[in-house]
């Protein structure tokens, strides 16, 4: 049971008068190539993306990023056209080290949540403390949103820009959840 305070508004059978959430935008991300990397040592880089950053942080930029989700697990995102290139360069960067690089581009779906009240919206279903002190820009972690497991990434910069990564089969649930939470935000 989630013990967070749900701020989602009620969905009515005939729909609702369109309420545009103020101060937050929920936008499905474009197709992107993503990889899960498992390797024991954190030395060196993979395709120019560093491995030695602390657990639960993201490095790189919005286009090419690497999130360290655990001691030996990373989630990598690159533009779709670079998928083959990344696999080739990872193979040469990690040559001689036991590792697993799995293409999860079709498994993962990204949703960008941005705006002043984005943290408030995510907290409708995410039990983490998303305040600036506890979850500053550059943080990334696997967590829960409602009943679904997500990877939550806070992009660099002072503005609150989040990426929610979920599995494909949960994408409609996660997107619907965010939109309903957005109605609650819209009502103030």
């Amino acid at each position, binding site marked *: *049971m989630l*013990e967070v305070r749900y701020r989602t508004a009620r969905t009515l059978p005939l729909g609702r008068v369109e309420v545009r959430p103020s101060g937050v935008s929920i936008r499905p991300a474009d197709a992107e190539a993503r990889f899960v990397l498992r390797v024991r040592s954190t030395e060196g880089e993979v395709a120019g993306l560093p491995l030695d950053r602390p657990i639960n942080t993201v490095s790189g930029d919005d286009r090419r990023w690497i999130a360290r*989700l*655990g*001691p030996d*697990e990373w989630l990598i995102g690159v533009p779709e056209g670079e998928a083959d290139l990344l696999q080739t360069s990872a193979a040469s960067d990690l040559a001689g080290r036991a590792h697993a690089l799995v293409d999860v581009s079709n498994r993962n779906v990204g949703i960008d949540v941005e705006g002043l009240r984005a943290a408030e919206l995510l907290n409708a279903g995410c*039990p983490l403390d998303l305040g600036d002190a506890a979850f500053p820009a550059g943080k990334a972690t*696997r*967590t*829960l949103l409602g009943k679904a497991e997500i990877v939550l990434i806070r992009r660099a910069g002072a503005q609150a820009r989040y990426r929610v990564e979920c599995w494909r089969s949960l994408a409609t649930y996660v997107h619907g959840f965010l939109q309903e939470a957005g109605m609650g935000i819209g009502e103030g």
Partner: protein
Amino acid sequence: MLLIACPHCGNRPETEFRCGGQAHIARPEQPGAIDDQNWSEYLFVRKNPRGVHAERWNHAHGCGRWFNALRDTVSDRFIETYPMGASPKSETTSEARA
């Protein structure tokens, strides 16, 4: 909300975790050499203490790693969490592991 201190991720909400039962159960060195009584005790018999209990926990919806924890089963308070393979620092160790 109950916070649990994952050794990798720090304090995180309880909903992200799964409990894996009693910790520090050593598999018999020679399973073929012990009798049925001892083998069944190794497989099935677990402590159910009123008080401090050493448990395995998994940060299932976080880093995904297993770790150990000392938890008081009366107050539900986590006394300590420590990595797999390590021993707890608290003095309650001997009672919890006995």
